[in-house]
C-alpha cells in the first residue's frame, strides 16, 4: 500500500464520508481511528481483536474526557 498519506484514497474517502453523514464528528478522532486500522490492516484473521481493542481504548478515553455519568 502507499506510504504517502496525501495519496491515500481510503483516507480521502473516509474524510469525505464524514462531511456527508456526520459533519460534527471530530476530525482528529477520525484520523486517530484510521491510524489504528492502518496499523493493523494486514493482521491475520485470528488476530482481529487487537484493532478493535485499540479502538475501544481510544473511544473510552474520549468519553472519559467528555465526563459522563458512569453507573
Amino acid at each position, binding site marked *: *500500500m*502507499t506510504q504517502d498519506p496525501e*495519496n*491515500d*484514497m*481510503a483516507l*480521502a*474517502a*473516509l474524510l*469525505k*464520508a*464524514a462531511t*456527508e*453523514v*456526520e459533519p460534527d*464528528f471530530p476530525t482528529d*478522532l*477520525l484520523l486517530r*481511528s*484510521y491510524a489504528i*486500522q*492502518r496499523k*493493523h*490492516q*494486514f493482521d*491475520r484473521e485470528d488476530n*482481529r481483536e487487537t*484493532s*478493535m481493542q485499540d*479502538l*475501544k481504548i481510544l*473511544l*473510552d478515553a*474520549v*468519553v*472519559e474526557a*467528555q465526563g*459522563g*455519568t*458512569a*453507573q
Partner: protein
Amino acid sequence: MILHTLTSSNFMPYKGKMSIAFPTNKDQNVMLVYGDNMRGKTSLLNALRWVFYGKAVGRHSREIPLFELMNKDAALEGDWSMEVAATFESDGHRYELRRTVNKRAYVATPSRSEDLEVVRAMRKDDIALPEHLIDSEINRFAPEQTSRFFLFDGELLDEYEQLLIDGSEQSKKIKEAIEQALGVPTLIRGRDDAGTILKQAQKQQSLDLQKLGGLEEHANKQKFHQTQIDSIEDDLAELNVRLRSVTEERMALDDDLEKTEALYQAKQKLTDTKAAEYKNEADQAQLNAERLVHIKDAWREIVRPLLTIKREHLHKENTQLTEQMFARNHVVTQIAQLKEAMKSDKCQTCGQSLHEKERAAAGALLGTLESDLLGMKVNQASFNLISSEIQALDKLLKPTNAALIPQLDKQIAKLRVEQTQIGNAIEKLNDIVQGQDTAEIARQRAKRDGLIREATRISEDIKTAQANLDKHEKDLAMISKVLQSLPTARAQKSTQLVNISSALEKIYARSIDRLRNDLKLSVERLASAAFKKLTTQGLYSGLRINSNYGLTILDERGQEVTVRSAGAEQIVALSLIDGLAHAGRSAGPVVMDTPFGRLDPKHRSNILSYLPTTTPQLVLFVHEGEVNRTTDLAGLGSKIGAVYEIQEVSPRHSRIQKVTQ
C-alpha cells in the same frame, strides 16, 4: 522492492540447488526465462510466493500442500530437506529471507505435510529479525494481498477474464482480492470494529438504563433487539461458513468432473462405436445369408460359358439341317412338278403342250434330280434331338441370381475392412475408458448439481436473515435516538459511547461505498491509459469499468464494443491488472507468464514495449512455442538484463541455467 537473488534446494521440480540472479539495472530491467510448459516456470513463481508467504498455489489458486512441494526424486533418495531463500532490498535496507523444511525428528519416512517442519529466518541489514516481527516487516513492502499483481501467473489472466462475467463465482473472489489490495478492507474493518464496540456499548447501556427509573421499557426493548441481533448474527456466521464449504466442495467436484469429462465423452463414443460394430455385423450376416441362397445356383454360372458355346454350335448345326431340309423339299417339289408335266404332257408353268425335245429334257432333269434326291438324306431324328437339346440348354442358361455373388462379395469385403477399423477404434477407446466408472461420474455430477441447489438455498436463507437483521438494527437505532433525547439517559457514559461508536460506524460504512466508487474511476482511468498503449486498434477510446471490475471496450463514439476476440480479452485483462497495480501502488517486481498464445505480433510487440515501463523489474516466462525469439522479443532488445533457460532432466527434475546473450 527490488529482488536480487532467488535460490532453492529440492523445491518442486528443481532437484538439488537452483540459483538465479535478477537484473537490478533500471535500464536493463527485463529478465527472460525460457522453458516449455510444465517444466518449471510456475514453480519459480511459487518459489517466490512460498518464501514470502508460505504458500504455493496450483490450478484455480488452490494451495499446494507442503508435502507436494518437495522434489520427488530427492525424496525417493531419502533427502527430505527443502529450502528457498531470497535476497532483496527495500527502502534502503538489504534483506535475506529463508524458509527451510526438514522431516520431523521422530519420523522415519514422511508421507504427509504433518511429518515435516518449517523454519523461517529473516535478516535485515545482516541483523536477524525475531520470528514474530517477520510478517509485519514483509507487509511493509510486499503485503500478500497485493502479491496478486506482481507474482502474476498466466493462468491468472484467465481468472481476470472471468471478471467480465458478472456475478460468477470467480468474479466475486477476484473482486474481493482487488478491493483488499486497494484498501477497502481497512475501512470495512473500521466499520466492523466500530460496530462491535457499538453493540457492546448498547448492551451496557441497556443494563445502565434498567437501573434508571422510567427507562425500563426502553431498556427492555433495547435488550430484546440486541438479543435478536446477536442470535441472527450467529446464524448468519454459520450460514456463511456452510456456504463457503458447499462452494468449495462444488468447485473441487467441478475440477474432477472436468478431468472426467473427456473420459465421459470417450465412453459415449464407445457406445456409439459399439452400435456401429453391431450394425456392421448384422449387415454382414444379412449379406452372407443372401449369398448362401444364391450359391445354390452358382454351379450354373460356372458352366454357363461352355454351355453357351455348346448352344451356339448346336444352333449352327440345326440351321444347317434346316437348310438341307429346305433344299430337299425344293428338289422333291421340282420332281413332283416334272413328273406331273410328263404325265400331262403340259408345262406346269405356262400350260402349253410339251414338244418331244422338251419331253426329253424334262426326263433327263427328272433323272438328275431323282439321283440327287437319293443323296439328300435328312436326319429328322437328329434335327429333333438337337432342337430338344437346345431347348434344354435354354432352360439351363436362364439368368440366375448367382450372378450377383461377386457384387455381394465386394460389399462384404468392404464391411470387413470397416469392421477392422471399428475394432481398432473400440480398442483405443477401451484403453481410455479402462477403469473409469461412469456410474461414479454420473453420481459426482448429481452431487455437484445438488450442491449448486444447496448453495442457492443457503444464499436465500442468508438474504432472509440479513433482512431480519436490518429490521432489528433499525428498531434498535430508533430506540437509541429516543434515548439520546432524554437528559438522564444522555448523561450515561455508556450512552455517550453508543453515540460516538454509532457515528463512527456510519462514517466508515459510507466511506466504503465512496472508496469503491473512487477506485473504480481511478482504475478505469489507469486501465484505459494502459489499454490505449497496448491495443492496435487506434479507434478505441478507452475502457469502462463495471461493479465487478469487469471492463468493456469503448469505441470512438464511446459506445460499447460487444464482440471481442480472445486476443482483445487478454489485452483488456492486462490493462486491468496494470491499472490496479498503479492504483494500489504495487511496488514489487512483475513476474509473469507471457500470455501471448492468443495475440498477433503487433499486440505482442505493444505489450513487450509497454510492460518494462510499468515496473522496476520485469521477469517474463517465455514458452518457445508462443514466442519467436528473434522477431517478438526484438522490441525488448536493449532492456534485457538476464536470460535463463529451464531444461528438463527428467519428468520430476528440471534445471535452470543462465544463457549468455
